[in-house]
């Protein structure tokens, strides 16, 4: 691949045509992965990065791997689609290929109207308005997702892996939209799952002396009091008030969560443990950043009814009383994690904290912040699930793990916002509203946008049919006048009520795909010139 281009400025109509060629190349690589019969993309590793090729069926990851086209004139269009797809992948985890297919149709059809004299700026605003009409229609069609079987069907719609979908159906029926989920790989065929009760954090026990089970390298305490602080303990006398307070509560176990314990302080705890006075273990506050530690200590305090003592607030361990200590029925720690179950905090305060975190989650659009909030919510909900994904080869395991992660993200969204009839039928069901909007419109650009949308709404269903081996013309003909929620079930070749057949899409993912594609395509139509550099940078961000 050449990285040296000829510097130039390209104007219309050439600019649009080259952009379109690049965008089509990217969409063509993504489109075959759509639907229940996905075809995959094999990506060779970069030099020096490894030897095993990647087999991908995630639109986001495929786009991310395509960092440059050899065709310099087409490269901007391809990279434009790449960034759109990756951003959607980061935000909602799925729907990327649907967005890419919609983008291509909106841009191609839009370009015809621009060439015919439509104003790109006005067409842009009308296309975005059309996207909102489509999203409103999708919201109207959405139904709640509930029950193991229905969740499993929604999972199967993401990737045609029945075994994984069945397992995720069970897992999400239990943990819900907010639950803690860890997806790991294991070197065995098949998939499995484990459930852990209570709140689990990363961070192992501070001293091996504290293990109650040296073989399993694990300590377990019952009826434990908890000291919650981000203070460091250098002087062992700092621990004495907390130990006395624990004994005053009538418990014989203490979990010490502090930033640091000196050897002398560890020695004091060990002496009391050996004497049977007070069984203890100590861990650091979870998280690396101070804000993370404060959030974790606050959550543990809510769950256990304790009061955290913060360095920044000038707190002192010498003033600890029984009222400051939290309490839990069970506490455990091993080399890498610690956990609590049966916290004795006030359930009303716990509900208020969960409601606050949910509001914060809904208010932010930052994916990292949402992930942190989701982890906090999951811990407060009382348990954690681990999904173990295996396969025959490393490539298969990696593929399935990626699918499991993508499906999990989709299911969380679907549990929050509901599900739609799948297979592109929900978009097809938006056509009557779009036709009505066209009939009532008086502006040429508005009618043009409606016409563009009427074609685009068929594009995902058509792509699924073609990917399953149906003739494009025959597939298009089947969508002429379908009842709402009906579509071509490509496995049987019959027109079915998709929701009743268990073919479901996440409403949140579909709405995000529609909005992303519409905004990106409408903006691309306003491009008037393209500037090419001699040494364009490879698109490594993201």
């Amino acid at each position, binding site marked *: 691949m050449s990285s040296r281009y000829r510097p130039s400025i390209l104007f219309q109509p050439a600019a649009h045509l080259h952009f379109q060629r690049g965008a089509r190349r990217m969409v063509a690589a993504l489109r075959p992965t759509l639907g229940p019969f996905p075809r995959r993309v094999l990506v060779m590793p970069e030099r020096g990065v490894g030897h095993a090729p990647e087999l991908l069926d995630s639109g986001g990851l495929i786009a991310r791997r395509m960092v440059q086209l050899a065709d310099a004139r087409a490269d901007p269009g391809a990279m434009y689609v790449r960034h759109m797809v990756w951003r959607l992948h980061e935000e909602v985890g799925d729907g990327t290929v649907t967005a890419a297919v919609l983008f291509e149709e909106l841009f191609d059809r839009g370009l015809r109207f621009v060439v015919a004299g439509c104003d790109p700026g006005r067409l842009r605003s009308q296309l975005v308005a059309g996207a909102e009409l489509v999203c409103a229609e999708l919201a109207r069609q959405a139904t709640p997702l509930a029950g193991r079987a229905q969740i499993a069907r929604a999972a199967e719609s993401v990737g045609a892996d029945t075994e994984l979908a069945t397992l995720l159906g069970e897992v999400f029926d239990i943990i819900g939209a907010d639950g803690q989920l860890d997806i790991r790989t294991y070197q065995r065929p098949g998939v499995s799952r484990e459930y852990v009760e209570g709140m689990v954090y990363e961070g192992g026990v501070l001293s091996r002396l504290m293990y109650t089970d040296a073989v399993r390298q694990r300590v377990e305490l*019952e009826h434990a009091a908890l000291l919650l602080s981000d203070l460091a303990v250098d002087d062992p006398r700092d621990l004495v008030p907390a130990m006395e307070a624990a004994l005053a509560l009538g418990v014989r176990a203490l979990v010490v969560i502090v930033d640091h314990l000196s050897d002398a302080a560890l020695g004091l705890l060990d002496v009391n443990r050996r004497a049977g006075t007070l069984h203890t273990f100590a861990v650091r506050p979870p998280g690396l950043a101070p804000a993370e530690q404060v959030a974790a200590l606050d959550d543990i305090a809510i769950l256990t009814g304790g009061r955290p003592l913060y360095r920044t607030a000038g707190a002192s361990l010498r003033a600890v009383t029984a009222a400051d200590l939290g309490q839990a029925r069970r506490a455990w720690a091993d080399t890498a994690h610690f956990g609590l179950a049966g916290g004795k905090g006030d*359930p*009303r305060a716990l*509900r208020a904290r969960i409601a606050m975190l949910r509001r914060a989650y809904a208010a932010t659009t930052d994916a990292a912040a949402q992930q942190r909030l989701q982890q906090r919510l999951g811990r407060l909900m009382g348990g954690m699930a681990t999904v173990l994904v295996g396969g025959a080869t490393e490539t298969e395991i990696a593929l399935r793990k990626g699918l499991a992660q993508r499906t999990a993200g989709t299911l969380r969204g679907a549990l929050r916002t509901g599900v739609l009839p799948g297979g592109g039928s929900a978009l097809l069901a938006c056509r009557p509203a779009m036709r009505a909007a066209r009939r009532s419109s008086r502006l040429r650009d508005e009618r043009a946008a409606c016409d563009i949308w009427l074609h685009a709404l068929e594009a995902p269903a058509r792509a699924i049919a073609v990917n399953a081996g149906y003739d494009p013309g025959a597939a298009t003909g089947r969508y002429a006048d379908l009842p709402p929620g009906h579509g071509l079930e490509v496995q049987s070749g019959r027109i079915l009520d998709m929701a009743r057949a268990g073919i479901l899409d996440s409403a949140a993912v579909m709405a995000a795909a529609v909005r992303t594609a519409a905004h990106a395509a409408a903006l691309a139509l306003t491009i008037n010139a393209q500037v090419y550099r001699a040494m364009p940078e490879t698109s490594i961000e993201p």
Partner: protein
Amino acid sequence: MIDGLDSHDPVHALIAVGDGTIYAGRRSGLYCSHDAAVSWRPLIGGSEAPLPAEVTAVAAAPGDTAQATLFAGGQGGLVRSTDGGVQWRVCMLPPPPPLVTAIAVSPAYAADRVVLAGTAEDGVFRSADRGERWASWNFGLLDLRILALALSPAFAVDETVFAATETGIFRSTNGGRAWREAMIPDCDEPVLCLAISPDYATDGLVYAATETTGLYRSADGGMNWEHVTAVAAGAQPVNAITCISPAEIVVALADRLVLMQGANAGYLRVVAQWPIDGITALTVAPGQAGHRMLVVGDTSGRIQRLMLP
């Protein structure tokens, strides 16, 4: 009315099994009656396991055999008998030993083998192998202080369970493995007991009795709740309820027992009342000549029989 037992021995739980045997969990242990609550004899643990000294919860697997499978709980855990209470075995619950406050056995126990145990501090334990192995299932259960459990009569199909806690109601639709709030609006006080319509699969009727605001009813499986104003509980607790038919419930207030009937789900009226103080447990048992008999236990230790009109 018949006074069956000594006073000052509060009755915590009463159940009637299909063959007419009635079991009573009391402060002094577990008792059974084979003559419609006329006489009682204490049950003692066999050689393998003693019964809890104080039995706070008791449940029986469905069936009309005299060799009923029984579960009895108290401080420290749960025991199980498969011979009508002659021999008992300890059920191994995860530590620390809990105080069992409620036990619910699946109506399809013979097929699904599911038993649930509610506890005072540890939420809900679930067994899917007739009580051999137990695991804590508290996903989404934000209040672990369980006061009552109620299973849907169609549990084999809908897997629906309700849990009453110190701060509200939770519902599970996967057999007690995960819970979602089914909260009564503007009410986060203790829900002392629950009752489910025998026709729950079709009418979705659930009743919830609270400590200070009376009785509530949901006609849609716990999604929405309405206050039942026909019974003026005032600020007194509703200590026990039982749904004897889709249109009839019996409500135990602090000073009386009330029978209510309704022609449909939206209206209930009081049809009979009995002045009894401190009722803590009640159950419906088959009476003579096909009559229905209420068996009522109270804080003073009396167990009384009432024939329903």
